[in-house]
């Protein structure tokens, strides 16, 4: 597999090898075609790129820093560079995607956006972009999640969004996604669906990747500037997979750079309570795309579990499925306990409170450092995508460590 091949995918119908594509009601095909055309046109349009670039720079604080984490490096025996997406406006990489999609919404002449959200991060980001660009915003959120994440519900409302609690199915993220799709089938003429990750029907996986791939482009250049060489490895957590594909994509053609995705092992693969699609799932179709899915023998979707809401999803972006099968990237499960130990380590060594999602990436890198050192015969240089900050997780972490009741 070569760099050029990576650059060419997906194919015109949205396939990454056998993955991706469009498994949607015919009613959505026209909107997806319209979106695909607008996205392709925008990607090739210098004016759009300039507008997007300026917005990222002036509003979101991009490019984010690449920070050499000396104390963490010392404690793990590797040269660790953190891509500080946690410092972006709204506190995560997600702002890149929502700003890109909001700009596209305006280009398509639509005036309303809908979004699904689990913990509320993508909902807050969508509400932010909608406020900035004067779009009506409706966020679907599982009823269970609206109760667990009352602060984010309040944030979305302050930003002017309507939050709709979803009471169907398991009343969590996957059901919020179903409900958003149902809304979109009815309102597609004037509404754009801002999917929060690099999943869903074509063109979403490619489009969300392209809006997020600046993470890797910047990190690659910053690493060369800082160290004079490319990293030995790049690591990221993988829920739907937008932050991971965002940082991986610029490195896919660099054969010497190992790519690691860390998914939620929850209480352990054996427990059945996890969100490890690659370790515990099988290929299938979910939410409009063919990918790895947590499912039972009849193809019914299984509920996922993770201490981190952002990783708690039974599907994964199709490009990750493709990178998994062809071996270009490795995907490993990280348990809740491993992630929380890494969370604490980063707090104490670097004074950075990471999102629980990002803590999975830290934990994963801790696990692979010994193998990498052995293979290379030296201290490896590793970029970790610190995809988000941990303010939103203080309650969960506080309870885990017994700091809060």
């Amino acid at each position: 597999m070569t760099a050029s091949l990576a650059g060419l995918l997906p194919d015109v119908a949205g396939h990454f090898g056998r993955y991706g594509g469009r498994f949607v009601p015919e009613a959505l095909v026209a909107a997806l075609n319209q979106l695909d055309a607008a996205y392709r046109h925008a990607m090739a349009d210098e004016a759009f790129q300039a507008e997007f670039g300026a917005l990222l720079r002036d509003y979101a604080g991009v490019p984010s820093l690449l920070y050499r984490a000396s104390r963490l490096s010392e404690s793990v025996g590797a040269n660790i560079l953190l891509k500080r997406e946690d410092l972006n406006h709204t506190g995560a990489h997600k702002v890149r995607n929502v700003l890109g999609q909001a700009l596209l919404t305006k280009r398509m002449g639509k005036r309303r956006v809908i979004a699904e959200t689990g913990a509320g991060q993508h909902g807050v980001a969508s509400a932010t972009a909608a406020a900035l660009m004067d779009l009506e915003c409706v966020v679907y959120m599982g009823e269970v999640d609206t109760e667990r994440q009352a602060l984010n519900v309040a944030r979305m409302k302050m930003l002017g969004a309507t939050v709709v609690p979803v009471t169907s199915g398991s009343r969590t993220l996957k059901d919020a996604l179903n409900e958003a799709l149902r809304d979109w089938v009815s309102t597609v003429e004037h509404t754009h669906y801002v999917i929060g990750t690099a999943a869903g029907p074509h063109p979403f996986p490619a489009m969300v990747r392209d809006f997020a791939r600046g993470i890797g482009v910047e990190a690659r250049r910053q690493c060369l500037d800082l160290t004079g060489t490319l990293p030995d490895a790049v690591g990221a957590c993988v829920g739907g997979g937008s932050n991971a594909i965002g940082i991986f994509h610029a490195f896919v053609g660099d054969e010497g750079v190992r790519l690691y995705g860390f998914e939620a092992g929850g209480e352990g693969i054996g427990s059945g309570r996890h969100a490890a699609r690659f370790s515990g799932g099988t290929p299938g179709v979910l939410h409009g795309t063919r990918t790895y899915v947590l499912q039972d023998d009849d193809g019914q979707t299984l509920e996922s579990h993770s201490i981190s809401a952002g990783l708690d999803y039974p599907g994964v972006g199709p490009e990750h499925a493709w990178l998994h099968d062809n071996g270009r990237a490795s995907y490993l499960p990280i348990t809740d306990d491993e992630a929380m130990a890494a969370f604490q380590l980063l707090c104490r060594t670097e004074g950075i409170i990471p999102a629980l999602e990002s803590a999975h990436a830290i934990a994963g890198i801790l696990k692979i450092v010994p193998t990498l050192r052995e293979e290379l015969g030296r201290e490896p240089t590793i970029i970790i995508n610190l995809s988000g900050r941990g303010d939103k997780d203080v309650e969960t972490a506080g309870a885990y460590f017994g700091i809060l009741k």
Partner: protein
Amino acid sequence: MSIAVAFEKARAEAGPAGRERPGRALVVGCMPAGFPTVEGSIASMKAMASAGVDVIEVELPYSDPVMDGPVIQKASDIALAGGVRTRDTLRIIEAVAATGVPVVLMTYWNPIEKYGVDGFARDLAAAGATGMITPDLIPDEAEEWLAASDRYGIDRTFLVSPSSTDDRIAMTVEHCRGFVYATSIMGVTGAREQTSSAAPELVARVRAVSDIPVGVGLGVRDGAQAGEVGRFADAVIVGSALIRCVLEAPDESAGLDALRTLSADLAAGVRAESDALAPLGSLARPEAAL
């Protein structure tokens, strides 16, 4: 009985006044397999058929039915919570088809892919189903299904929508066999106060490129609306309104009674004797959905 034979027989009967086509429309009635139990769903489907529903559409319950509104979602959830499996759906189809009524399956794609596409087509044909409706499988992604359904002689029903371009309508009906499913409004399943003005136009667009029978679904709740849709469609597809008969009944026999009453009303609606035609004014306002 194959669905083609059912259409042929209906063409020899008389439809409601003002019908644009020879004969009358078929009534297709939908019920999720295993709702509320495997035996209960078989009884419901048999009751519908005996009271005048021409074709039984069995829906395979799925955990993430994005094309369905609250009524079918709820019924599917009940069926899944009761432990219904894909093989139970096949058993239900077999029991209902054995009575002689044509049976088609409506299913989201993942359970079929998980079962094995070729093996499922084989077992579906063996159970006696004549066709399969695929709400989230478009012909663009259906290569394996096209081959398997050809191999075992299963009719293929894909969906067309008011938002479909003419090219896509032509491409889609070319891949259909038996009938094509026209989703009459932009929206999910569920009975509505009014059926849609977009439906006749969509049906006309299909007729412009094909003589395949057109079934119209999404929103029909009674005989009057069935009669209305039956003026221009070849089949009237009713789901949520029938399912609600069972959902809202105090017990099984009351549910079956309600099903028979509605089925008979729908059957009368698509026939000449019908005096239940809705005023034409109620055809307006497609956005009055949900």
